[in-house]
Structures are given as C-alpha cells and as structure tokens.
C-alpha cells in the first residue's frame, strides 16, 4: 500500500535515533532519556553531608579533565545491598545524565547487591541512556569508577579488604610508564588506532617491543566500548 510521503517523513524525523554508530557517522545530539536526566537529575545530593550520614564515599576525575564525580552511599550490611546512592557531578550533559542514570540503576528494586554493582559496566549505563555520542562515552565510564571507588571505601571501612578491587594500572611500556589504563583512556577519547594512541601517549616510541601488546589492548578496548569491529 502506498503511504503518503509527507506523513512518513515526519514520522521518520521523530523516530530518527539521536545517536548513531561510529561507522555510520556521528550525531551531536543526545537522546531524550539523557536530556531528562540532565534537566531533572535523580538522587542528587542537595546538602553536603557532615561525615556521618553516609556509609561510604568515592570520587573520580579532576576539574582539569573536565569531569568530576563524587558519590555517597548507604549500604545495608545485612543484605549487602546499596540502599542509597547520592551524587554530585561536574561535567557535561552526558556526565551528569550518566551519574543520574547510574544512581537509578543502583537503587531501583530495593537496591543492587554489591557484587552486582561492582560489575556495572559503562555500556550498561549507556544502554539505559539509549546511547551516547562516541566522544562522550568516557563520561559514563567515570560513573562506574566512582561507584567502585565508593564501594572500595566501604570495604576498607568494614574490614572486607579481600573484596577491594584495584583498577588496572599495569605498565605496558617501561620507558614512558604508559599503563593499560592510559591505553583505555586514549581509546575512550577516540584514539582507536595505534597511530592515534601513540600520538596521545607516546607509547612504544622508544620501546617498539611492546607494540603488539598495545595493539591487542587497543582492539580489546575498542571492541569493549564501541562494539565489534566491522568486517
């Protein structure tokens, strides 16, 4: 059945995805979910606590980077669930929306189990947000790291040292002291080829022996954050 051109284009415009795949081009705009969390942040901490009102606290990022996330948690020790997740974020729309969305994910349905919360990945947050523009992905990555920092704080305070998980900092290039985390950060900021990563990190310039490992890492993080490589 032939459809009216006029109505089909207007529907198309309304349902056009805000965020498109890296290989298909890039969109600047955010999804409606991102917008709603940005303009109406959930679980925001209104008043700075006096130090006793929360069980644990974590911070990640820096004002110089352009993103800082601070997270406060209340945890039910008996059930090992996170009952409260309050936050404040300095950063762009996606950073603010991603923290807000994370706070909802963690506290919905009676609160997430700590073991589950430790496993929350950036793409889980992004999925709930309906996607983010490629170059904004690093914003949501900080959200899960701030949460893990707060949970580590909780483990320290409660003597559960065996549960503390340290973020990977293995050095891949002894000359430049570039770590796996550096490679991860470079990939997240859009350096998805060896050339681009080297430009940012100088990795392997004086120590080419590490380059196969670096390439492996780039592929790993590229696929982790941007999906499998197109064949």
């Amino acid at each position, binding site marked *: 059945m032939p459809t009216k051109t006029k109505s089909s284009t207007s529907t198309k415009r309304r349902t056009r995805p805000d965020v498109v795949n890296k290989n298909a081009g890039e969109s600047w705009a955010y999804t409606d979910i991102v917008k709603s969390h940005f303009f109406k942040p959930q679980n925001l901490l209104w008043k700075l606590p006096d130090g006793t009102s929360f069980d644990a606290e974590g911070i990640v990022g820096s004002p110089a980077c*352009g993103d800082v996330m601070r997270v406060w948690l209340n945890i039910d020790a008996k059930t090992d669930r996170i009952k409260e997740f309050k936050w404040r974020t300095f950063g*762009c729309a996606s*950073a603010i929306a991603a923290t807000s969305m994370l706070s909802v994910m963690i506290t919905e349905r009676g609160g997430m189990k700590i073991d589950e919360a430790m496993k929350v990945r950036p793409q889980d947050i992004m999925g709930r947000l309906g996607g983010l523009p490629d170059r904004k992905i690093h914003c949501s990555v900080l959200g899960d790291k701030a949460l893990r920092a707060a949970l580590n704080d909780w483990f320290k305070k409660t003597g559960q040292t065996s549960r503390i998980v340290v973020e*990977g900092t293995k050095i891949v290039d002894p000359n430049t002291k570039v770590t796996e985390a550096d490679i991860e950060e470079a990939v997240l*900021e859009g350096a998805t080829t060896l050339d681009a990563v080297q430009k940012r*990190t100088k990795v392997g310039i004086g120590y080419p022996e590490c380059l196969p490992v670096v390439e492996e890492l780039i592929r790993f993080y590229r696929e982790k954050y941007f999906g499998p490589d197109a064949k």
Partner: protein
Amino acid sequence: MKKKMVYFDYAATTPLDPRVFAAMKPHFAEGFGNPANLYGLGRDARYAIADATKKIEAALGCRASEFVFTGSATESDNIALQGIARANKDAGDTIIVSNVEHKGILAVTQALAKEGFTIVELPVGTDGLVRPEDLERVLNERIVLVSITSADSETGSLQPIAELGAVIKAFRDAHQRSTPYFHTDASQAALYQDLQVDSLGVDLMTLSAHKLHGPKGVGGLYVRRGVKIVPIIFGGGQQGRLRSGTENVPGIVGFGEAMAIAQAERERESARIAKLRDKLEQGIFARIPKVVLNGHPTRRLPNFLNVSILDIEGEAMLLYLDESGILVNTGSACNSESLEPSYVLMALGRPYEFIHGSIRFTLGKGTTEADIDYVLRELPGIVKILRRVSPLELSMDHNAVTAQPKAFIGGQTPHFLRKKK
C-alpha cells in the same frame, strides 16, 4: 508556538542581511553567465563582480587587482601562507604566527612544517595580545611571512596590527628587503574594525563574507601589488591566476553588498553593540559570583564577551541556555571534537578548570536590550542549578592545584597534564 530564540553566536556566523540576499537573487537563475565569456550574459556577470570588488576596494583602500575572491576565510589563509612560503624559498624559510591564530592558520603551519619550513609561534600575554617588542626581537632575514590575526575568535582581543606592521616595515627598510610580508586574518574583526590596508601596514588580509551578514562559501584575500605569491589551486587562470575556478558570482555580489552595508553602519553599530555588551558584562559580574573575564578588558571587539563561570562546565551551561532559547558558545573540551579545551584560552594562561567553564557571548546586528535583559534573568538561575549539581568549590586563585591524582582513572595523570615533549 515558536520557541524564543536569542542568538549570541555572531562570531560563529551571522544571518544573511535581506538587502544582501536581494542583491544576490538576480545572479542565480537569470544572470547565470560565466564571467569569462565575452558575450553579453558573460559580460554582465563580469560587471557584477567588478561592482562588488569596488565596494571592497573602498573598504580596504586597495586596487581591484589586489583582491581575489575565494571559497572561505580558511582558503584565503591557505593561499596566503602556502603561496608566500613556496614563492619565497630563495628569500627564507620561516613563518611567524601567534599562538591564538585560527585553525585555518595553525593547521597550515603544521603542514608547512612537514614540508621543511620553520614555524615560530609568538606567545600572547595573559591579556591575549602579541607585544610588538616580542616580534621585533624574533625578526630575522630568514622570515618570509608574519601572520597575526586581527582579533582572535574566542575572546575578540584586538591585536595591535598597525604597530606590528610598523615593526615589520622598519625591519624591511633597515635590511633593504621586501620580506617578511605581513598577513592578517581580519574575518572576525571586519564588522567593527578599520580595514584600510595602508594604515594597518598589511600586505595580505583574509576576509569572510558570512561573518559580515553575507553568504557562506565566499571569502577573500587582499594581496598587495608586488607581493611574490604562487597559487595553490591551478586551472583556467581566473582572478589574476592566483585563484583559478569560475567565480561564485552571486556569492561575490553578496560579499560586496555586505561589505558596503557593514562600512556604512560600522560606527553606529559598534557604539550600540559596545553599550549592550558592557551591560551584559556588568550584569553578569553583578549577579553571579566567581566569574572571570577572558581576553583583554578594553582592547577587544565591541561584540565579544568571554567569561569563565567557575565550578560548572561550559557544555552543560550551553545546553541549559539552549533550553531557554539562548544560543552561546563555549571553550570547554566537551564541546570540541578533539575533547581538548580551547587552545586560545590556554594561551592566555588560564588553567583547564577555568576553561571548562568558559562561555562566549558574541552580539550582533539583531541583538536588542531586551535580549540582554532576558539573559541576565535566565543565566543566574541556570548557574545556581548547575552549581548545586557540581561537587567543585574552585578557588579564584589561578595557581591553585585542584587535581587529586587518586581521582584519575587508575590514579594516573591524564594525558593532557603530562609534560609535553
């Protein structure tokens, strides 16, 4: 209902003036001739270009043969830098630019550096200005071109072009040389500044029509008679062989008309805009705590206001303002493709923390007092909301160290804070 829209991004581009549009219209469908042709239709196109050129001659105080039309200010910058560098290899191999130049200059210098040319970047002071004595100190006989923007596009700080031109002329006279030549990209300044090339002492000048309420896709380059330059685009030899390709007749007509209108209205508009800008500036400083002005406090284009509002991030501010229908720009990293904070604001010695909270208002022909009042009503509330969301409490002291290493991914220093090689 149509959403309210208050445009504060005239430095990005300006709306086409209806008078300019009217002047352009006859040159699309009816007057479609190729100016290279001798028959009537072609001649008409050629006369239209000549008329437009006359209007630009008047503004610059130059001859018709000294001005070529291009596709953009970026193209003009490319012709100026590449054309001079390649044509004057026997005279030298060095080009001087400031560190607040437009990418249209800096990217070309990077490409020329790969070809073996030497590039010297003159740093500006914290007020955003190049000091003539700094230029004097670095001038030598290897230098073929000095290119300094008339006003940078982020703070609108006005470079002392005439003084810099005098320094270069004095050097040439003392050494009896025709180089270095002096180029300025005046595309951002053209609406509000004197463009007379002789009083400025420039040998090349870049202009852009769409910053003057003209059409997009047309730029221009003034090249003083006698300057040794080679083309970067080769072909049919149009425009004195410097810029081959059939001329964009309607665009050029629009450029000429826009320039004539700009010149006629310049004085009145500059005074009107400066008053509105000052009201906006004073209003923001009076209503919002922890605000820092970026750029020169007085030697600045009358339509520019760039401030850093501390503890909040520029892109977030931009989107909240957009929701209120106020369109602005920011130097925050989040707003750039590269995720690097503005290099112009970095050149002024601003810390990253300040740059991320920078916001640029550029006023223009359509800006009214009611628009300023509207911003002053909306902005304080937006800042309040975003400061409530933000965990930061930055100090106004520029040198305060705010970064906690443990807060970075993996406890590492991020790539842009590591010392550059």
